[in-house]
C-alpha cells in the first residue's frame, strides 16, 4: 500500500518535471540555490541539505533553550504562581518572530543575485521553443516555492518545540493546539514577509536602475538591509519591555512596525481580542499584502525591462574601476613588503577583497555585526548618566573598537578561505616556489592594513575627546597590541595565498570554526575590555598587559617553530581531512 503510494507519487513527480513548466521550475529552483551568473558565485555554493541545516539551526537551538526556561520544575523552583502562557511568552514570541525574519532575510540576501533571470538563462532558454509566459511563471513559482521552503525550514523546530516547552506539560490539548497555531502562523507569516521584502527591494532597484548602477548599489543596499535585520535582532532586549512601559499612543506607533505587528497575528490566533492587538494584526496584514504586491509588480517589471532586453545590453563584465594615481601607503608597502612577489601577492589580495562581490558580502555581514554590537554598547553608554562625570571610560565604551576590529579581522580572515576563480591561480602556482613561506606575512599585512589605519586614529581621537591624553594613549596601545595578537592567532596555521586555494577543511569544520569565533568574540569584546577597564582605573595596572601579550605571542611563536616545515609550505589544494 505504502509502496504503491510512493510509486504513484514518484510517477506524478516525473510526469511533472517532464513538462516544460515542471522542467523550468526545477531548473530555476536549482539556479537560485546554486547562485546566479555572478562573479565566482559558484565558489560559495552549498548543497540544499547544508543550506537547510544551517537555516534550521538557530531556531532549533533557541527552542531547546526554552525547555530550560519554561520547564514546570524550573517554574516551581522559581516560585512562579499562576502561569498564563499567552502573556508570559510575549518576549520570546517576539524573539522567535525576529529570529525567523532575520534568518529568512539573510537567506534571501544570500540569494540576491540569483533571484531574477540573467544572461545565462537568456542564452540557454530563450532560443528554445518555449513561451515567455511559461518562463515568467516558472521562475516566479520557483521564488515562491523557495520562500515557502525556507520559511518552513527556519521555523520548523520552533513550531514543534516551543509550544511543547511552554504548554506541553501543563495545558489541555486544545490549549496546546491554540498556542501552536498562533505561534506557527506568526513566525511563518513573518518569514515569508521578510523573504518577499528583500526580493521586492531587489526587484524595485532592478526595475528602476540601469544594470550597471544596480550592480554598483546592490552590495551597499544588501549591507544596509543586513544592518536592519541585525538591529531588529538586537531589539529583542528592549522592544517587549518598551511595549509595556510606553504610553498607549507611543505603543500603537511601535506596534505597526513589521516585526512587532506580527506579534498581533499570534495574539489574535490565541484569541486575545483588544483594539491594540487588532491594530497590530491589521498592520501585519497590510505589510504582508503590500510586500507581496510590490514583489509581483517589480518582478513583472524587471522581467520585461531587464531580462528581455539582455541581448540589447552589452555584456557588462566587471565594473570600471577608478584609478588612484596616489596611494599614501605605497612607500610603506615597499618598506614592509621586501620582495616583489610579496608586493604582487599583496596587491592581488587587497584588490580581490575589495572588488569581488562574493567576498565583500562576507565582510559586509561581519561589518554589519560589528556595527550592531557597537550600537548596543553605545546604547548602554547613553543609558549611563555618569558617563562623563567619572573621567574614566566604562567597559562598554572600551569594548566598541574591540568589537569593530574583531569583526573586521575575522570577516576578512573568513573571506580569505573562499576561493576566487581557482582556474586563475595557475599564475601563482607557476611563479611562486612551493617552499615559499610568505603567505602568512602577506595575509598579516593585509589584515593589519585594512584594520589599523582607520581604527587607531579613530579610537585615539574619540577617547581623547571624552577623556584625557593618558587614557587615549593607553587605550589605543592596548587595542593595537590586541589586534596584532588576534591577527597572529587567526593566521596561526595559514599557508596559502588568499583566494587561490580550495577550502574543504573550512567547509567541513565550519560549525566548529563558527563556535570558536563566537567564543573568541565574547573573550575579545567582553573580557578584554573588562580587564582594560580595571587596568585603566589605575594606569600602573596596564603594565599587566605587557607580560600577558608577551606570553601569548611567545606561545604562538613556539607553536609555529615546532611545526614541521612541510606544514608551513604554500598550498593550492587542500584535502578534506579523513574521518579517521
Amino acid at each position, binding site marked *: 500500500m505504502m509502496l504503491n503510494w510512493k510509486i504513484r507519487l514518484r510517477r506524478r513527480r516525473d510526469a511533472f518535471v517532464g513538462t516544460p513548466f515542471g522542467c523550468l521550475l526545477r531548473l530555476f529552483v536549482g539556479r537560485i540555490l546554486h547562485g546566479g551568473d555572478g562573479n565566482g558565485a559558484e565558489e560559495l555554493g552549498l548543497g540544499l541539505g547544508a543550506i537547510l541545516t544551517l537555516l534550521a539551526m538557530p531556531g532549533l537551538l533557541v527552542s531547546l533553550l526554552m525547555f530550560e526556561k519554561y520547564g514546570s520544575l524550573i517554574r516551581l523552583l522559581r516560585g512562579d504562581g499562576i502561569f498564563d502562557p499567552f502573556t508570559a511568552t510575549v518576549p520570546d514570541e517576539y524573539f522567535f518572530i525576529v529570529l525567523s525574519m532575520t534568518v529568512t532575510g539573510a537567506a534571501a540576501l544570500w540569494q540576491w543575485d540569483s533571484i531574477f533571470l540573467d544572461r545565462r538563462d537568456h542564452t540557454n532558454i530563450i532560443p528554445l*521553443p518555449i513561451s515567455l509566459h511559461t518562463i515568467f511563471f516558472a521562475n516566479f513559482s520557483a521564488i515562491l516555492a523557495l520562500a515557502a521552503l525556507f520559511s518552513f525550514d527556519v521555523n520548523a523546530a520552533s513550531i514543534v518545540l516551543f509550544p511543547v516547552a511552554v504548554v506541553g506539560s501543563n495545558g489541555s490539548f486544545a490549549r496546546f493546539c491554540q498556542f501552536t497555531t498562533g505561534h506557527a502562523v506568526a513566525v511563518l507569516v513573518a518569514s515569508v514577509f521578510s523573504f518577499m521584502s528583500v526580493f521586492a527591494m531587489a526587484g524595485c532597484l532592478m526595475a528602476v536602475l540601469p544594470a550597471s548602477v544596480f550592480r554598483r548599489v546592490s552590495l551597499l543596499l544588501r549591507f544596509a538591509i543586513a544592518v536592519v535585520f541585525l538591529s531588529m535582532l538586537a531589539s529583542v532586549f528592549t522592544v517587549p519591555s518598551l511595549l509595556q512601559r510606553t504610553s498607549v499612543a507611543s505603543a500603537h506607533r511601535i506596534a505597526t512596525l513589521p516585526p512587532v505587528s506580527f506579534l498581533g497575528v499570534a495574539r489574535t490566533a490565541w484569541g486575545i481580542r483588544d483594539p491594540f492587538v487588532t491594530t497590530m494584526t491589521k498592520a501585519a496584514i497590510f505589510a504582508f499584502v503590500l510586500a507581496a504586491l510590490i514583489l509581483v509588480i517589480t518582478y513583472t517589471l524587471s522581467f520585461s525591462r531587464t531580462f528581455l532586453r539582455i541581448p540589447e545590453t552589452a555584456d557588462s563584465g566587471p565594473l570600471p574601476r577608478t584609478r588612484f594615481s596616489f596611494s599614501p601607503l605605497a612607500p610603506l608597502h615597499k618598506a614592509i613588503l621586501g620582495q616583489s612577489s610579496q608586493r604582487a601577492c599583496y596587491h592581488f589580495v587587497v584588490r580581490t577583497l575589495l572588488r569581488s562581490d562574493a567576498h565583500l558580502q562576507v565582510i559586509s555581514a561581519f561589518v554589519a555585526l560589528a556595527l550592531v554590537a557597537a550600537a548596543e554598547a553605545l546604547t548602554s553608554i547613553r543609558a549611563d548618566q555618569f558617563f562623563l562625570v567619572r573621567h574614566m571610560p566604562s567597559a562598554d565604551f572600551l569594548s566598541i573598537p574591540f568589537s569593530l576590529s574583531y569583526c573586521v579581522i575575522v570577516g576578512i580572515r573568513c573571506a580569505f578561505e573562499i576561493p576566487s576563480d581557482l582556474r586563475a591561480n595557475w599564475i601563482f602556482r607557476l611563479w611562486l616556489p612551493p617552499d615559499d613561506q610568505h603567505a602568512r606575512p602577506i595575509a598579516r599585512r593585509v589584515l593589519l592594513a585594512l584594520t589599523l589605519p582607520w581604527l587607531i586614529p579613530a579610537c585615539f581621537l574619540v577617547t581623547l575627546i571624552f577623556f584625557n591624553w593618558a587614557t587615549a594613549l593607553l587605550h589605543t596601545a592596548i587595542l593595537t597590541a590586541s589586534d596584532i595578537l588576534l591577527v597572529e592567532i587567526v593566521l596561526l596555521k595559514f599557508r596559502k595565498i588568499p583566494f587561490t586555494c580550495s577550502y574543504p577543511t573550512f567547509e567541513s569544520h565550519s560549525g566548529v570554526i563558527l563556535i570558536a569565533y563566537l567564543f573568541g568574540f565574547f573573550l575579545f569584546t567582553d573580557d578584554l575590555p573588562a580587564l582594560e577597564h580595571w587596568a585603566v582605573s589605575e594606569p600602573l595596572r596596564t603594565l599587566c598587559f605587557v607580560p600577558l601579550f608577551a606570553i601569548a605571542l611567545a606561545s604562538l611563536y613556539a607553536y609555529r617553530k615546532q611545526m614541521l616545515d612541510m606544514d608551513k609550505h604554500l598550498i593550492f589544494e587542500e584535502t578534506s581531512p579523513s574521518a579517521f
Partner: protein
Amino acid sequence: MLEANRLSKSYGSVPAVQNVSFYLEPGQVLGYLGPNGSGKSTTVKMLTGLLQPTDGQVTHNGKDIHNNLTAYRKRLGYVPEEANLYPYLTGEEYLDMVGILRAMPDPRRKSRIDSLLQLFALAPHRHISLGSYSKGMRQRILLISALIDNPDVLIFDEPMSGLDVTSSLVLKNLIQKLSARGKAIFFCSHVLEVVEKICSQLIILRRGQVIAYGRTAEVLQSIGQSTLEATFLQLTEGRDVAQIANDIVEVVVA
C-alpha cells in the same frame, strides 16, 4: 527558407547592422565573416529572434519569425558564441532539459541523447557536472543540444571554439553532411580555412554593412585573390598584419 530582408539594428543612435539581406536555401551553408564589432553577433541575435530588428525583417518559409517565434524556434538549432551553461547540471541533465523544453517525446529524447553522447565521445562524462567540463566538452554539449531535435535551420556562432582537432574535423564533415540532407546552415566563424572549405555562400561584413555577398568562388574571383584569407584582409583590414607582428617583436625584445 530563411530570408533576411534589409535587416538593420541600432543601439541608440549607433548603427550595429545596416541593410543586411540574404537568402538561405535548404542545403546551403552560408559563411558569415567580419572583424570584431562588425555586427555578426547582432545579426545572429536577430536571426534567432532574440533581438527585434530596428528595420527590416527575418522570414522563415515566407513568414515573419516574430509572428510565431515558438514555431520557428522549434525548427531552429542554435549554437551560441559562448558556452555559458549551468555548471551544476550534468551533461545528460542539460540535454534532457533541452529535449523536454523542445517538447520531444520521452523515448525519442532519451535515445537521441544516448546516441549523440556516444558519437560526440561524451558518454563517459554524461554524469559529470558541466562545471567540470573543458571548453571543448561544453562546446560539444551545445552542438548536441542544437542537433537533438532534427532542426531545419542551423545557426552556428563560432562553433569550433575550444574543439580539439578530431572534434573540429568531425564538425566540418558534419556540416557538409547536414547540408547534403537539406539543412540550411548559417555559419559564423573566424576560422577562414574552414569557411572557405565548407561554405557554399559567403557574406563579409564591415562596420555593420555587407561588403561582399555571393557564392564563395565568385567572391574570391571578384576581389582577385586566390584565398579567402587574402580576400578578407583586403576587404576588412587597412593595416599590414606582417608589419604589426614585426612591431610587436620589436617591443618584446627591446
